[in-house]
């Protein structure tokens, strides 16, 4: 489903990420592990096409990302990638259902109201569809963010530290939802986390070393 080969990322002369090779098949569910500062978020952004690596080849869903730029890359990301950012961040100016509609229109997809309804039901927030994000609890906001990430049936779902600041029960629920929804959408799931509770729940692991950073 995706393949990274000889990927490195540098900020100036400092190398912050190095991935010799990482390959995942469609529908697989991966933990992207490593301690804080190991480059997990950077690697997620590279997979999402938000960051272009300094060197290396990234192919996602059959698309060499080096061949895409500008609006074409944005369109590809909207179609193929669903992102659950660490802070979730729902767009506060619109309600819960509109957050999902935004995900459709920003990706250039028609708004599928039936899909939105069923997704909100699946993550148990259907009754909150017309609420404002500021009225949601952390757990409710996380469920909406997960629904938003999969609403376009992306090939790849990326979640950045989804269990941070959650107790064990909520962490398990969040992860289970992510796994279920990714599976239902037929997507490959990559969860970036340094949380030890996550590892037993995901079948595949790619670990980034503790200290990648070094002068080039």
């Amino acid at each position: 489903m995706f393949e990274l080969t000889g990927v490195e990322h540098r900020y100036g002369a400092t190398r912050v990420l190095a991935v010799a090779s990482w390959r995942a098949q469609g529908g697989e569910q991966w933990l992207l592990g490593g301690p804080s500062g190991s480059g997990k978020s950077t690697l997620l952004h590279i997979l999402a096409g938000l960051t272009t690596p300094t060197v290396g080849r990234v192919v996602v869903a059959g698309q060499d990302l080096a061949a895409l730029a500008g609006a074409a890359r944005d369109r590809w990301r909207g179609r193929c990638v669903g992102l659950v950012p660490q802070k979730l961040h729902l767009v506060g100016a619109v309600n819960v259902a509109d957050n999902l509609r935004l995900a459709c229109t920003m990706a250039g997809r028609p708004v599928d109201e039936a899909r939105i309804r069923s997704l909100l039901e699946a993550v148990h927030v259907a009754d909150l569809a017309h609420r404002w994000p500021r009225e949601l609890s952390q757990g409710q906001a996380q469920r909406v963010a997960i629904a938003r990430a999969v609403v376009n049936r992306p090939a790849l779902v990326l979640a950045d530290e989804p269990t941070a600041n959650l107790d064990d029960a909520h962490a398990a629920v969040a992860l289970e939802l992510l796994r279920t929804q990714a599976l239902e959408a037929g997507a490959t799931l990559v969860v970036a986390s340094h949380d030890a509770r996550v590892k037993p729940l995901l079948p595949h692991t790619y670990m980034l070393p503790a200290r990648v950073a070094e002068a080039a």
Partner: protein
Amino acid sequence: MGPTRLALAYARRRPLATLLVILLAAVGTAMVVLTLAVSREIETRLTRDSEGIDLVVGAKGSPLQLVLAGVFHLDVPPGNIPLAAVDELRANPMIAQAIPLALGDSFRGFRIVGTEATLVEHYGGRLAQGAMWSASMEAVLGSEVARATGLRIGAQFTGSHGLAEGGGGHGDAPYRVVGVVAPTGTVLDRMVLTSIESVWDVHDAHHPPDTQGEAHDHDKAKAAGPAREVTMVLVRYVGPLAAASLPRAINSSTNYVAASPAYETARLLTVFGVGLDLLRAFALLLIVASAAMLFVALAQALDERRYDLAILRALGASRGQVAWVLLSESVTLALAGAALGWALAQVTLSLAGAWFPAAAPLAETAWTLRGSELWIAAGAAGAGVLAALWPAWQAYRLDVAATLADA
């Protein structure tokens, strides 16, 4: 839920700032629209009242005063000229029509004009009631005079000296209303029309000691001797060639002044124009203040929305789309302000027409969108774009990965 709807959702989230921006733009736009309407009406009225009058011939004095007194009836005449001047002018082959006017008195602020029936014809007037005057001391009222004074056929009234209300009266020489002219939309509507002989008779019967000032130049003329006088003559040329030589000939070879209403009107509009330009400048200042307010609101909002915009990019929005969110919000608010301002101006025009009869023609122009007003909308949209340019540029070049990592 596209970028434009999202922009409106953002605007709704900060209602006070949004309202202030819209109100500032609306007040500025309303002022621009109103000054345009007023200047258009002034120009139309001046043009309509002076249409078909090529020259005003009267006593020596200010040509502008002569035109203001004889064409627009807004000023007192500089003096009188002999009745013989009318015949002299009519004998001139370059003159197609010469209409004499005898001025001096008024009734409740409306000027009493001693003239001939051709003046009514000149303004396209037709009788709505009664008949034209056929004897001395018979009067025909313009439509506005009849409406404002409530005088009907057969009613009697007396004139007072001068143009303003409250001058000394001619209580011993009453006029009798014999007709009312239908509305013409011209200065005729504000005239009390009678024969020149009526004006002479009023002043033959009434010779007070020399009255002060302008109001009673005709009294002085009467006291000087039996020779009849008129106040001025409205002249229409036979053809355009007369314009080149006739005014100069009259001014250089007679004791009269020949004033061109077209030229004096243009001068008058220049004077009015300064005041209207000042109003327009103030209105534009309000619109600029609104754009500045919009800029500040968007610049502040940009900080608050940085992460929102990064999320939109992560969801697949292009740089252009996130920039458009800010641009469309700004342009929408500016256009809303312009639309509200236009509507405010139309309401003001309608109310002004209802409350002040003199503004009735303005009210008739209300709720009609004009080309010049579309330019105002384009200007408002331009101001909206300018206000949002920098914030939109910042949104365009947002580093999505860095913003998401900073959150």
